Structures are given as C-alpha cells and as structure tokens.
C-alpha cells in the first residue's frame, strides 16, 4: 500500500520584500485510498503545500521531509515526481500555445508509463473520459488551455488525473470559480478516478461546498503555515457554521 508522508515541513518563498516563511512545520500522512481535505483561510499556506509537493522552483524547503513509499520526494525533479506517481491539479493551469490537448496527453502518458500507450485503447480511453467530463470532442484538437473557460480548464485537469492514473493527487482549489453543474461534473470525475485506481487525494479548498460531492475521510484546518486542528468530516460541518475566526484569534495570541 502506498503512503505519502510529510514531516515537519518548513518552506519559504522569495518575494520583493525578502524571504517569507510560509510553512512552519507541516506533518501529514496520506494512505492510498484516503481523501484528506485541507481547509483554511487565504494566505494560510495551502497552495504552498501543494506546489512544494509538486516541486515548483519558487518554493524553498528549509527543513523537513516528503516521502513517497519511503523515497525522498524532495530530491526528485518535478518530472520525476510525476513519474513516481504524484499529480497536482492546478488552480490556474497555464496555456501552452501550439500544443494540442491530444499531443500533450499522449506525451505525458508516454513519459509517465515509460512507453507509448497502445494507440487504439488510448484513443478510446481519452474519448470516454472526455465524454464523461462533458468535454466536447473538439477539445482534443485545441491547444492546451488556450481560450478555455475557467470550468473547461478544471475539467482538463481532471481529465489528466483520470488518464495519468497517479498514486496521489493534490487538488489545489479545483472547486474555485466553478458553477454548481461544473462542480458536480468535476467531483464525479475525481470520485471515478478514486474508484478506478484507489488513489490518495489531498483536497485543498477554501469552502466546504465541494465536500458535499467529494466525501473526505479526514479534515485538516490549515492556519498560519501549519495544521491547527484535524478531525473527521464533522469538522468541515463545524467550519461551515463557524468559519475560521476561532483559529485566527488563537494564532494572534501566539
């Protein structure tokens, strides 16, 4: 069984004002097949955690470890992490002009698997995933994310999640900017991927809305760069009622 283990993670970022400490000792263990929701106010470091796991060069790990089945993730390049089984669904996926979705998906699948996917089953897989995500066939020939609406970009992220079959996926505010129909379609995609591959999910969100459709096993409240409280799904209900104020007062006292 796969496990993603984050221990005492401290991360900083360079800004115009100098070095800013963002993560201050994050501990988190995710097992295969589990869904962990990370919730927290803006600026608490949720996205930093997501990008640090994926290896974005902007974030500097000061101390701590991230291990995937005992392997040192922090020593891996960005692409090696993906090949090891990590996936990040981005909040703001970038446009790649001149690179078609078809070409991109095939290139990524080949990179992840180490061999090109058999053409007939691959085309069928892509077509079926796209139709389940209510993506028009024309998407395949469009350039990656170019001219996509916010909802289309998110669907394209989940399409990749389904096709690349990672062991662990980090979903960075995948719910943001989605209307309720799109939110349902995207959530169904995530649930389907979990059923099919049994992956572990780290679901990062500001709102409890998406938790109606994707049921977390654990909820962690992220405040000021570390986990302030954790519990089961009932914690999300409490946050829905009370908001984050309680935690913010606590940190100010610290």
């Amino acid at each position: 069984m796969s496990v993603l283990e984050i221990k005492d993670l401290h991360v900083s970022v360079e800004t115009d004002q100098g070095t800013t400490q963002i993560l201050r000792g994050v501990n988190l263990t995710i097992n295969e097949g589990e869904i962990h929701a990370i919730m927290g106010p803006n600026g608490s470091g949720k996205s930093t955690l997501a990008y640090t796991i994926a290896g974005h060069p902007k974030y500097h790990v000061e101390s701590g470890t991230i291990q995937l089945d005992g392997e040192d993730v922090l020593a891996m390049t960005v692409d090696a992490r993906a090949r090891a089984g990590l996936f990040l669904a981005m909040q703001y996926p970038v446009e790649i002009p001149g690179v078609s979705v078809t070409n991109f998906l095939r290139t990524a699948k080949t990179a992840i698997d180490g061999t090109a996917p058999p053409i007939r089953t691959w085309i069928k897989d892509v077509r079926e995933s796209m139709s389940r995500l209510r993506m028009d066939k024309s998407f395949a020939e469009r350039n990656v994310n170019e001219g996509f609406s916010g909802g289309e970009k998110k669907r394209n992220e989940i399409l990749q999640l389904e096709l690349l079959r990672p062991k662990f996926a980090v979903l960075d505010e995948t719910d943001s900017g989605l209307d309720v129909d799109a939110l349902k379609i995207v959530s169904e995609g995530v649930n389907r991927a979990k059923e099919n591959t049994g992956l572990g999910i780290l679901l990062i969100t500001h709102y409890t809305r998406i938790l109606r459709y994707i049921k977390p096993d654990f909820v962690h409240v992220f405040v000021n760069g570390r986990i302030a409280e954790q519990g089961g799904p009932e914690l999300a209900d409490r946050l829905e009622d009370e908001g984050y104020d309680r935690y913010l007062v606590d940190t100010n006292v610290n």
Partner: protein
Amino acid sequence: MSVASAKLNPVSPAMPTAEQHGIKEHSDGRFGYVPVQTRSARFKSVNVADFAAVTGREAVWKFSPVARFTDLTAGELDGSVYDYSVTDAPGVTVDWVDRGDPRIGTAGLPEERASANAWTSFERALAITVTGEDEKVLTLTRENLGSAPRAAHTIIEARPFSHATVILQNSGDARITENVEIILGDSANLTVITVQEWNADAVQLASHFATIGRDARLKHIVVSLGGSIVRVNPAVHLAGSGSDTELLGLYFADAGQHLEQQVYVDHIAPHTRSRVTYKGALQGKAARTVWIGDVLIGPGASGTDSYEQNRNLVLSEGTRADSVPNLEIETGDILGAGHASATGRFDDEQLFYLQSRGITEDEARRLVVRGFLSEIVQKLGSKPLEDRLHAAIEAELAVSEGN
C-alpha cells in the same frame, strides 16, 4: 520612376507640402526641405547609381551587417539565368522573359541599393504565370546558385480568378540580391511561401513587391532557417478595393546568424484587410533577428482592417532580437488597426506545467518551442511542407541542445 511610384502611392493630402507652408525653394540651399515621413514617400529607383553608397546608418540598413555584403550593394553582379527545378502544376507556366516584359516594375520599385543593384543587373526575369480557378501547388527549387555574387528577378503573376500556392524553396550556396514581383489580378487567390534553408555561409537580400487587385487575396509566408545573412523584405500594396493579405513569418536564428524581415503593408484602396504575424526563435551566441513592420493606411483606404504582430522566443544568452512595429493612419474611417510586439524567454510556468505531468525538461522545452512556432507552420496549408518544417525545427533544436 516617379511616374510609376505616383501610380502606386498617390501623394497623400495629409502630407505637409512646401506650398502649404508658404515655403519656396531658395537658391541658398535646402530651406524648403520637408522631411520624408510617410512610408510611401521613400525614394525609389531601379538604377543603382541613384543610391549613395551604403553606410549602415540608413533607416533600411541600420540593423544589418552591411560590411559583410558590400559585394551585393556596391559590386558587379552576375545577372545571368540560373538553374532551377520546378514541379508540374496545371495552368502554371514558368519561363525566362526579357527585361521589356510589361509586368516588370508594376508591383513595386527598389527603395535601397541592394535591390536597385539587382534590378540594374538582371538579364532576364523568371516569370511564373498562374491561370485556372482550380487550386494547385507549384514548388520552384533553387539549389545551385553558387557563391559568386548574383542578381535575380522573379515575377509571380496570378491572373484574375486564378488560385494557386507557389513555394520558393531555397537551399545550397548563395550570395544573391534579388527582387520578386507578385501581381494578383482581380479575385485571384495566391499563396507564396518562400523557404530559406541555405548553407551556413549563404547571404540573401530579397525584396518582394506585391500588388493586389480587387477582391484578391495574397497569403505570403517567409520561412528563414538556414544561411548566414538572410533578409527578406515583403512590401504589399493593397491596390484593389476589398483586397486582402495575410503575411506570415517564421524564423529560427542560431549562433552567428542574422535573419531580417522588413514588412510593409500599404493600404491604398477601401475595404482592405491585412494581418501580419511573424514569430521567431533565437538560440546561440550572436543569434540575431530583426523585424520591422510598417503599416500605412492611406487617405483612400476607408474601412481598413489591419493588425500586425511579432513574437520572439529567446532560448539562450547572447542573442538579440529587434522588433519595430510602425503604424501610420491617414484616414479616420477605419474598422481597426493594431500592433503588438513581444520578445521573451521561456515561460517558466509553462515548463513547470509540462514537467508536472512527467515530461522531462528537455522535452518540455521542445514542446514549447515547437508549439510557439507551429502557429505559423499550421497555416502553411501544405501537409508535406508542414511535416518537413516540423522536422527542420526539430533539427534546429537538436543542434542547439548539442551546443
């Protein structure tokens, strides 16, 4: 020449004239001198002796390494006929014609010394004449021009209602200065693709002049990959009402290469449309590219719709890309006119995105460059040529990775 130029570029009422300012020429010199400002008012002549020796300070030469081709601007040129090969296309003829051919001089006239030197020196012109409404593709290949300085003159005439793609494929050695006249009759639909894949020390200075008849459409594409100095300057005169042009360019400069294009779109008639998109990549020490885009919307060109852009992708240190868009508008009644220019390095976020999907950094770079340039490749409309250019771009990238 002044007669011909007046026909092409009617004097603009918006231009200040000496009379209008009450100024008269004095015997004491140039008191009445009104500076040339409008693009169409540049001096033109087919006689090389009418141009002063090139110094490199002239507007048309200031970005070019003029010392490296004085043989072409000031020397004697071999103007004789040369070897070429051509594919068959129904309704298209290719012949050598005399200097007295009535088409010569109808699409444009030299505005600088290399162009005039070629015009003075060529013995016969190679004429490609397109007829017939069915679409066809003709490829004309020049690969044995040799390394002695030479002049050439080419005419591409698309008769009214004709439809064709003409590919000018250039490779091998060359030291050439040349003029290409492109003449589109009413409602003709012509695509001209000039591909430069010269040997590494080749020098080419080319001026393309086009005049487009009523409701005719010219797609003109410059692809420059190989050669030491390659300068292809297309000037398109939208002379017929409703005429339309799309000018595309794709270039990839390696270490030491100088690739230049000065594009000029002259909106003369009403309801004309132009789109200019040039994209280039630069890689290696002293890789150099120049793009100048002049658009002139004349006083008679009401209803003009025009947009020009240049994008450069800088792949390594030590390169230089000059990008100069110019827009002159002499009528208020237009649909639109705009320009854009951007030169930048790799977008790190694009690379991160691709790498986060398991794609290695090298392959991610290749994808981004190929994607950047493929916007132009996709518009060539010839599948074999598209495939060949994709392969040529791959080869350019492979070479630079080896550096």
